[in-house]
């Protein structure tokens, strides 16, 4: 008798195990489209044999020994690292394109055009130094040039301020994510202690790590208790067990722009702007420096223009026979302007020298083709500006292609991760068919055993 009842137990264990397996497959199918979901596999194994002697070996059935997430921590690390690079280059690209728009000359109106018109106006004046039309055209073209430079500088400043705002936003995002990771660490610790399944928490934490790495480059490791510790690439801790360390933003006294800070264990702010790399935040900080470079370049162009034109103009003689005043006022791109007194009285334009009625106008017009010192280089104004346009063009072109490469790499790792952890409904269905067959067979066995038992009883 004992063998029939043990056989019934074996059949029962098979029925129970198939139910668990079908449940697992069912849950996988349910989450086939869930982002960040790692499929779960159940491992069924034969239960220990209970035999009185080795010659009468029989199995005792099957049991599901473990249910576990299928995940590949190495792929996740690769994905995070690719994310950091992709986040950086795509953030950088976004702002570089903003800078590029400031330098866009494809419609034929811009600084290049304004420079041409300015010098052309001087040549026209040289041809008719006393002409009042030529004088007023020159003054309005010069005002056009100055305001074009002012506007470009302001546009660049706007881009820079925009980036600064985005930096605060990104820092907030990072703080939100690290808090959640610390929170999940805590939940995982507690769940593990009480023997509860942690798959969902781990999936969520993996997703957060991926998201965090696209915001800033981080390094992380899992400790013995299953908690994940996260550090910035400069070694400052963001998440340590169930505690998260917030990043902050303060205004730099010199630049007036935001600095990123990290709170140390004493609650003091440590400025870490310079040591942040990767991710959106890294890209934003890089782009902000790049904007500053272009602002400085434009500033140098304006300063040199003011210096060169004024130097010549002040040696000239105006239409009233007086010595020339400064043609431009201001010191750089932000404040270059045509001298107010010239705007009010175009006769103050000093076109003549002491021996030639148009010498100064000719000389200033000649600046168009003269190589002057700008920002440590020697170039004509036009050449210098053209080099800026082509520099930003090249930067955008290069960043576009590196951003594409990085995002392709992210796609590759996402696919790879999906290949390992993702749900294939075909796989699951095939398994379910198998489990169904086994279930049917075990039920059949049960019914045979039942008949055997009945036969026994009816003897």
């Amino acid at each position, binding site marked *: 008798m004992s063998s029939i009842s043990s056989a019934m137990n074996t059949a029962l264990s098979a029925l129970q195990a198939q139910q668990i397996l079908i449940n697992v497959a069912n849950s996988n199918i349910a989450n086939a489209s869930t982002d960040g979901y790692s499929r779960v596999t159940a491992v069924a194994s034969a239960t220990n044999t209970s035999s009185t002697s080795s010659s009468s070996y029989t199995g005792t059935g099957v049991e599901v020994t473990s249910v576990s997430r299928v995940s590949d921590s190495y792929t996740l690390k690769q994905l995070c690292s690719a994310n950091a690079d992709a986040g950086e280059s795509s953030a950088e690209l976004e702002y570089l394109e903003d800078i590029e728009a400031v330098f866009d000359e*494809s419609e034929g109106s811009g600084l290049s055009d304004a420079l041409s018109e300015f010098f052309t106006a001087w*040549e026209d004046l040289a041809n008719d130094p006393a002409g009042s039309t030529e004088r007023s055209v020159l003054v309005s073209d010069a005002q056009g040039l100055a305001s074009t430079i002012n506007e470009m500088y302001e546009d660049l400043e706007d881009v820079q301020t925009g980036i600064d705002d985005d930096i605060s936003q990104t820092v907030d995002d990072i703080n939100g994510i690290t808090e959640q990771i610390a929170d999940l660490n805590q939940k995982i610790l507690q769940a593990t202690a009480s023997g509860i399944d942690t798959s969902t928490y781990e999936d969520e934490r993996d997703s957060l790590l991926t998201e965090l790495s696209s915001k800033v480059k981080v390094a992380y490791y899992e400790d013995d208790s299953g908690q994940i510790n996260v550090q910035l690439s400069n070694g400052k801790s963001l998440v340590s067990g169930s505690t998260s360390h917030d990043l902050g933003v303060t205004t730099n006294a010199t630049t007036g722009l935001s600095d990123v800070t990290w709170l140390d264990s004493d609650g003091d702010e440590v400025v870490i702007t310079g040591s942040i790399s990767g991710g959106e935040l890294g890209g934003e900080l890089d782009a902000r420096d790049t904007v500053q470079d272009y602002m400085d370049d434009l500033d140098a162009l304006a300063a040199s223009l003011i210096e060169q034109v004024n130097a010549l103009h002040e040696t000239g003689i105006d239409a009233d026979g007086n010595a020339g005043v400064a043609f431009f006022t201001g010191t750089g791109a932000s404040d270059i302007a045509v001298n107010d007194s010239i705007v009010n009285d175009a006769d103050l334009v000093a076109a*003549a020298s002491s021996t*030639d009625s148009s010498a100064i106008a000719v000389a200033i017009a000649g600046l168009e083709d003269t190589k002057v010192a700008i920002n440590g280089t020697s170039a004509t104004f036009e050449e210098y500006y053209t080099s800026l346009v082509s520099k930003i063009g090249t930067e955008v072109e290069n960043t576009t292609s590196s951003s594409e490469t990085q995002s392709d790499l992210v796609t590759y790792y996402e696919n790879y991760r999906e290949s390992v952890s993702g749900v294939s409904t075909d796989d699951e269905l095939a398994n379910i068919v198998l489990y169904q067959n086994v279930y049917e067979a075990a039920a059949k066995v049960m019914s045979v055993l039942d008949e055997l038992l009945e036969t026994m009883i009816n003897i």
Partner: protein
Amino acid sequence: MRITNKMMINNSIYWLSKQAERLSDAEIVSASGQVINKPSDDPAGAAKILEYRSAISKYDQYQTNIDQANTYIETGENVLDSVDSLLDEAIDYATEMASGAGDYTETYLSSIKDIYNSIIDLANTTYGSDYMYGGTDTDSTPFSDEIALSSGSADIGFYLGDDASTVTFTIYDSDGNECGTYTTSGTAGSNTLSWDGSVTLEDGTTTTLSDGDYTFGITASDSSGNAIASSCYQGDDGDKTMYISDSSTIKINRTGGEIFTEALSAISQLIAGLETGDDETIESCASAATESLDTALDNIKTERVALSNIYASLDVSSDRVDALSELLSEKLSAIETGDTTEAAVELSAQETAYEIATEAAAKILNLPKLSDYI
């Protein structure tokens, strides 16, 4: 590799969006008719576009300069042509007067005064709003014998053909009466006298004139007593310079003193002679003036040759600038618009590729699944 449903969908979406991006790029090129729509489309090409555009605008300016210079020179040529005929006329009179003026003294005087005034008018020609022959000073009348004595001082401009040890100004009041003379010295070219209003009277005494309007006549001689050409030129020695290419400028002589002093001086000499009414003086003045008038005529002819030389070189420059500008315009449009056929082909290729990508995505979404058969 294990392929999951999500992977297939993700890949379809990825390639669809990539293909859509390429299609949109091709559409922008075709629609705008420009290959380069922002610097990053082709940084080197974008730089070239700016370079060509500014070069073309410069060539346009050179062309404007050349056109202006041409008109300027044509005007100058007309002036000098008239002066040329007037001097011929004056030479004829002088030749006749060399053998005495007789009863015709008054007729000669008025004719020659007319010639003098005509030449002054021509020398004071304006171009636009500028005096053509005043050097740098384009606002004040280049040849003027008017003096406005104010607060006991007045600046008087004059021009000398050579260094002169004695320059004598004869001052007249507004009614044309002689008030006295003032003597100074001067160097070849433009001079300015800061006059304090003092004059020497015929009796050798000195007096200072009161403020008011006066006119003056001028004569000059060197230390040996030889007459030096002089005129009432108020301008300076400046020239007009125009850029006609990156490196070359042309200079147009505007120094009226240099061009007209010899002529005006010779004619003044004739007038002075005629005004004495003394036949002997008239004859000697006329023969001296004939020589000076020949020199003056030579000066004018030399100036006309110089002008026609500039004119010819402007013609060459104009052709060159035109050719360069056209060449650059062609290059510019080649870079800017690229090959339109190529753009059209590219667009239709991308359209086809996009269609294929959408078809593929639709197929993938509709692939049979195991569940269809179970």
